[in-house]
């Protein structure tokens, strides 16, 4: 019974991994660009929620949209202020720019919020429910289900709406999209806004359940790399499945080997995948 509980917990956290990893894979697939600060975006989402609760005693229905809104702004700022010009530069500049941004955000957060772990005070979401003998944390359940729903919504947005199709068209062939009257610049800005916003929501959802500190962004950033590598280049459904899988593997390795090994297992798996199937489980070569 306890094993089933561990599996459910892992899947619920994995759904949140899927949500923020979808943002990373979207930008990667579209611009062939890796955002090394993506984990820090998730961390900022957590602190955005934290500040809202601390100052305004906001409930989840207020601080989750606020985290999304704040991170959309951050994403647009980063895109227009930095990424757009760095994309024209050498590869070195592309990697260093978001790597520098990651350090800056992480240690700014250290400076402002200190290195201590904090957790959100209990919100309206609390307690546990029992479903056929399994105890599930309500905040965890709400977080996981919301994240899974939003990841699916992102996929539907990309495949079923006009803006989404334009975005995918730019990802497919920039020049051809331009000939069809689509402005790549706008679509890329939209991708950064969606990616950062989803990272912000994911951060707020994790913050409801788990304690956090500024250095947690690094862990989430690496987790997102693993999920994206597993799920394949630019694939949101791939990220969903890989995210659930990574959450599950983490929960099981923490359960069987001890909590210290949950990150070790994931990174080791990442190295193994790079050797065996670098294009991902569902990706194209």
């Amino acid at each position, binding site marked *: 019974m306890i094993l089933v509980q561990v599996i459910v917990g892992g899947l619920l956290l994995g759904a949140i991994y899927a949500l923020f990893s979808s943002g990373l894979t979207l930008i*990667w697939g579209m611009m*062939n*660009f*890796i955002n*090394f600060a993506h984990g820090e975006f998730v961390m900022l989402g957590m602190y955005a929620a934290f500040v809202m609760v601390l100052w305004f005693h906001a409930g989840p229905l207020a601080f989750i949209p606020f985290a999304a809104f704040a991170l959309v702004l951050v994403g647009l700022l980063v895109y227009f*202020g*930095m990424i757009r*010009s*760095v994309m024209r*530069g*050498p*590869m*070195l*500049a*592309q*990697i*260093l*720019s978001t*790597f*520098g*941004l*990651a*350090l*800056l*955000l*992480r*240690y*700014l957060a*250290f*400076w402002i919020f200190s*290195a201590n772990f904090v957790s959100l005070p209990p919100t309206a979401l609390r307690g546990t429910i029992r479903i056929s003998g399994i105890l599930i944390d309500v905040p965890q359940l709400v977080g996981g289900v919301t994240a899974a729903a939003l990841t699916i919504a992102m996929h539907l947005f990309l495949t079923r709406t006009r803006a989404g199709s334009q975005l995918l068209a730019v990802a497919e062939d920039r020049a051809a999209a331009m000939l069809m009257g689509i402005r790549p610049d706008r679509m890329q800005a939209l991708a950064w806004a969606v990616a950062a916003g989803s990272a912000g929501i994911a951060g707020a959802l994790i913050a409801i359940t788990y304690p956090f500190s500024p250095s947690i962004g*690094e862990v989430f950033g*690496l987790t997102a*790399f*693993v999920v994206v*590598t597993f799920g394949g280049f630019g694939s949101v459904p791939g990220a969903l499945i890989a995210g659930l899988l990574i959450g599950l593997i983490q929960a099981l390795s923490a359960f069987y080997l001890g909590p*210290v*090994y949950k*990150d*070790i297992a994931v*990174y*080791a798996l*990442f*190295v193994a995948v*790079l*050797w065996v199937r*670098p294009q991902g489980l569902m990706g194209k070569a």
Partner: protein
Amino acid sequence: MRGASLAGLGWLALALGAIVYPLVLPGAFYVDVGTTLLLAAATAAAWNIIGGYAGQVSVGHAMFFGAGAYLPLLVYKLWEWPPIAGLPFGIVVSLVLAVLVGMPTFRLQGHYFSMATIAVAELIRLLVATAEPLGAAIGLQGPAVGRGIWDLTFRSGLPYYYLFLALLAIVLATSWWLQRSRLGFYLRALRASERAARSLGVPVRRCKLLALMLSAAFTSAAGSLYAVKTGFVDPESGLGILVSVQMIIVAALGGAGTLFGPVLGAFILTPLQTVTNTYFGGEGSGLTYILYGGAILLIARFEPGGVLDLVHRLRGVFANRIPASEQSRHAA
């Protein structure tokens, strides 16, 4: 030709200056700053071989530095060998790591290599921090008192200064040789366009792997000398992400992919670091890292060629101005 001999003279003057520096300023503080600068320049120059010349941005070079730092203290702990005897073992471990990371990722686009380096470096840091034989989170220590000259425990900082100077000289000499060797031309070709280089018959994967192994070996040697000097290493000081960051920022600040860039970067960053550590209260405050992050971001955004590129451009502007002014004189 004149430019080449002028550069040679510059290097000669720099080498002479480096040799006499601790004799002119013998205070322990100055020698310490000098040693820090040499270490920063040597590791950045080692990183530069793969990150600069080959354009494959490693953000996990701490794994090589850490392997180099841990092995000397490990052979001392296990068999009471003099720590410096661990240097070749560190290099062997680093070469194995280089192959482990490079073999699968060099088939793919550059991003994969960057992601793999950071993931493997983190994996190793986490593993070492839980491994009891490696001192876990506490780390390893060298001999407190030297049992003989071979333990290389000197009271004065001077011998270490010259050890690091010798290392820097070797790394720079290798880089200089690399620049004019066939491998060096291949590396620059594949940095500019991998597809074009491959179509011209450059063995792209093998070149990248060779460059990474060369870079890893030197980084490891620097780590070993660091461990011999400080007689102590823990997961953070040997394998922490800041170790990798330091190499990247020094090389990128000076000018990645150039011979002089890493040296120039160390000349700019080390004094700055000393000042910020003195006035902002050490490394713990995190302000140093905020400045690092901001600096990396600004370099990438505005001056991806580093300070050296900026200097060259300014000199170009200056050189163009002379004929322009002569032209106006003729006109008048």
